[in-house]
C-alpha cells in the first residue's frame, strides 16, 4: 500500500506508453481465431465480413460427387492486415466437417486437441533453455461458436461442445444467419440460450476481474446482455438509399449488415476488434494458458515423483 507521490516537476516517464507503442507497432500484433459450427452457417462469410476482406473460402460441399467429410478437419489460414500503420497478423482456423456426419460423437475432439496443442507448443518453447526473445504466439485467442437459428433452444451437441471449449479458450457464441428470425423470436431465442448456458455453468467471455474499473465492468455487463450475437454476414454490396453497404437483397427487402436495427454485426465487430482485442489476447495468456501450464507442470512433477517412488520399490 505504497503512497502515491506527485513529483515536483515534470519528469517525463509518462512517455513510456509511446515508447511501448512504438515498439509494438514495429513488432505487429498476432490474433488467432477459430470458427466452429455446422456446415452452411456462414462462418467463412462472417469472417470475411468482420475483417472486410476475403480471407477464407467457404468449404461447403457444392457438387454431388464430392464426398462428405468423415471427420472434423483443421485448416489454418494466415493473413497480414495493415491499418494506419498497425500490422495485424491474423490466423484463422476453420473446422470443416464439424457436426456434419450422422453420428457426431467426438467430432469436437480434433478441435480441443488442436487448441491444447497450441498451448503445449508455446509451453515447450517457453521451457527450453535457449528460447527466442519473442515467442511466436499460435495460441487461439478467440473461438466463435456458431449456433443454428432454430428459434427453440440449444441442441445437445452445442451444449457439450461449448462446455468443453470454454475450459480451454474464450468462447463467443454467435447466432448465425439471424435474418431468419424476427426481432421477437430473436429475443426469445437469446433468453433461452442464456438460460441454458447458465444452467450448465458455462463460463463465457468476457470475464470480470478485480482490476476492471467501473466503465469496463459496465461494458462487460452490456456485452453479456447481448451475447449471443445475432449476426448476418455478407461480402456483397447492395445499394440502400444511394449508399453502397454490405447486405443481402431479397424480393421483400434489403438486409443491411451494418444497421444495428437489422442485426448485431456491428456490436460483434466492435467487440472483437475495437474494444476487446487486447483483452482477448491477454485473457488467453493469463487465464487459459496459465491453467494449462499449471496442469501440465503438476502432471510432470507427479511423473517425476512417481518414478523415484517406483525406483525405491
Amino acid at each position: 500500500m505504497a503512497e502515491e507521490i506527485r513529483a515536483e516537476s515534470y519528469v517525463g516517464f509518462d512517455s513510456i506508453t509511446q515508447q511501448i507503442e512504438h515498439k509494438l507497432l514495429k513488432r505487429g500484433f498476432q490474433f488467432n481465431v477459430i470458427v466452429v459450427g455446422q456446415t452452411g452457417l456462414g462462418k467463412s462469410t462472417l469472417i470475411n465480413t468482420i475483417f472486410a476482406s476475403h480471407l477464407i473460402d467457404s468449404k461447403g460441399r457444392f457438387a454431388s460427387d464430392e464426398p462428405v467429410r468423415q471427420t472434423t478437419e483443421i485448416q489454418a489460414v494466415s493473413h497480414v492486415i495493415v491499418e494506419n500503420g498497425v500490422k495485424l497478423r491474423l490466423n484463422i482456423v476453420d473446422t470443416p466437417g464439424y457436426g456434419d456426419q450422422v453420428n457426431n460423437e467426438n467430432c469436437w475432439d480434433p478441435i480441443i486437441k488442436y487448441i491444447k496443442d497450441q498451448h503445449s507448443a508455446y509451453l515447450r518453447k517457453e521451457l527450453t533453455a535457449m528460447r527466442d526473445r519473442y515467442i511466436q504466439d499460435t495460441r487461439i485467442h478467440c473461438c466463435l461458436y456458431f449456433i443454428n437459428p432454430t428459434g427453440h433452444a440449444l441442441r445437445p451437441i452445442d451444449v457439450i461442445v461449448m462446455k468443453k471449449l470454454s475450459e480451454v479458450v474464450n468462447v463467443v457464441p454467435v447466432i448465425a444467419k439471424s435474418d431468419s428470425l424476427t426481432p421477437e423470436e430473436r429475443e426469445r431465442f437469446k433468453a433461452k440460450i442464456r438460460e441454458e448456458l447458465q444452467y450448465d455453468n458455462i463460463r463465457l467471455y468476457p470475464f470480470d476481474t478485480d482490476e476492471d474499473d467501473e466503465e469496463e465492468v459496465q461494458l462487460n455487463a452490456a456485452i453479456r446482455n447481448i451475447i449471443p450475437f445475432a449476426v448476418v454476414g455478407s461480402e456483397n454490396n447492395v445499394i440502400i438509399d444511394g449508399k453502397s453497404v454490405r447486405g443481402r437483397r431479397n424480393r421483400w427487402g434489403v438486409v443491411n449488415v451494418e444497421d444495428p436495427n437489422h442485426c448485431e454485426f456491428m456490436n460483434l465487430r466492435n467487440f472483437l476488434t475495437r474494444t476487446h482485442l487486447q483483452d482477448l489476447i491477454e485473457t488467453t495468456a493469463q487465464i487459459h494458458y496459465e491453467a494449462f501450464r499449471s496442469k501440465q507442470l503438476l502432471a510432470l512433477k507427479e511423473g517425476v515423483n512417481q518414478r523415484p517412488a517406483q525406483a525405491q520399490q
Partner: protein
Amino acid sequence: MKTISWSLLLPRPKLDMGPATVAKQTQPRPTSFLPPVPVNSKMTDSYASSRNGDLSPNGFANGSSPSLAPTAHTTGISPVIRKKLMGYVGFANLPNQVHRKSVRKGFQFTAMVVGESGLGKSTLINTLFNTTLYPPKEPLPPAAERPKTVAIESIGADIEENGVRLHLTVVDTPGFGDFVNNDDSWKPIVENIESRFDSYLEQENRVNRMKVVDNRVHACLYFIQPTGHSLKQIDIEFMRRLHTKVNLIPVIAKADTLTDEEIAEFKERILSDIAHHNIHIFQAPTYDNEDEETIAEAEEIASKIPFAVVGSDKIVTTPDGRQVRGRAYPWGVVEVDNEDHCDFVKLRQMLVRTYMEELREYTNDVLYENWRTEKLLSMGVAQDSTVFKEINPAARMQEERVLHEAKLAKMEAEMKMVFQQKVQEKEAKLKQSEEELYARHKEMKEALEKQRAELEDKKRKIESGRPLTPEKASTGRKKGFLRT
C-alpha cells in the same frame, strides 16, 4: 337391288364418305369413285339416301350410323369405333354421382413431416391447412429430461370446406436429427410407415372388409436446412431409405434466409444430389390427353421442386397497408401467399389442390403394392404363374408330349453314349490281346527259327564228316557203305 349390292361391294374407308356429322363432304365427291355407268344417277341417289341415315340400306335402322375412323389405316392400330349419340342418355352424370358419394363418405389424408427441430414444420402445417393444428411449442426448461430417441406423434383433425369433409392426420417426428448420434434415427420412422402398411394389409385380408380405415402415409414432407451448399449426410441417408415406401416431397425450410440466386443454386444442387443417389421423389404424373392448361400447370409445379417455403400463421401488416399472412422483419415483410416471395402457393397446390388424390393413388397402387409383394414373397407365398396362363387342354397336352419326347430323346442319347463307351472299351481290350498274341507269335517264331538254325548247324556238321555220336557215325558209315 343393285344399289344394295353396290354399296356392299365398295369398302367403306375408301369411300371417304363420313357419317352424317361430317358435313364437309360435298355431294359430287363420291361420284368419282363410281364407274361411268348409265345408272350413275341412281347410285348417287341411293348414297344420298343412305347418308341421311334414316333408311340406310345397310340395315342400320336405329339412329346411329357407324363410321370407321379414317385413322384405321393411317396409324395401324385397331380402329376406335366412336359411336355418336343422337339423343341424351344421361351417363354424363356419373362424375356427379361419384362426387356426391365421396363427399358423403369424406376423405382421408395422412401426411408426415420430417426434419430437424426448429425448421418450421409445425408452422408450415398450420399455414397449409389454415388452422392451428399444432399449438405453439413450449420450449423445455434446461433441467427437463430430454428424450433419447425419435418419437412419432400424430395429430388428427376433421376439417370441412364447402361441404367436403377431410380427415387429416399429420404425423410428426420430433427428435429426428437432434441428437449427437443420429445413427438409425430413421428406423422408428420406417417402422411406423411399415406398420401402417401392415395394418392395411391385415384389414384387406379380413373376412369382413366393410370398414377399411386407410391410415397409410400418403406424403412425406422432408425439411431441408437452408445451408445453401448441398444435402447433408443425414438428409441423403434418410431419403435413400424412405423413397420406396412413401411419396417424398423435399422442401427447403425457412427460405426467407436465402436470396433468389442462392435459392436457385441450392435447388440445382439438391436435385443433382438426389439424382446422383438415385432417390425417387414424388413426380406429378402427366397424362396424354390432358389439356394445355393442366400440362402447363403441372410443369410449373414440377419445375419448382424442391419447394422453398416460408410458413407463418400470423397476420402482419405490409408497408403498403395490406393485412397478409407473413413475417415482419425490420427490413421488410415476407408474404407467405405471394408467389414471388416463396413457393408456398405451389406446395399447397401440389399437396392439397391438385395432387392430393394422385398422392393417395400412388401410395395405394405402387408403394403399397410393392411392399405387399415383398412381404408376401418373404413370407413364402410363391408366385403362382399358372394364374396368368389360360388353360388350354390341347396346348397343354402338346406341351406335355413335347416334354415327354424330349425326355425320351435324352434317354436315347444317354444309352447311345453308354453303348459307345462299352464298344470302345471292348475294342481296346481286343486290340490289346491282339498285340499280345502277335508278340507271342513272334516269340514262338523266333524260337522255332532258332531251333531250325541249330538243327541245320548240326546237319552241316554231320555232313562235313565229323563223327559226332555213334549213331551219327553209323549213319554216316552207312552212307559211305552205300556210296562204294
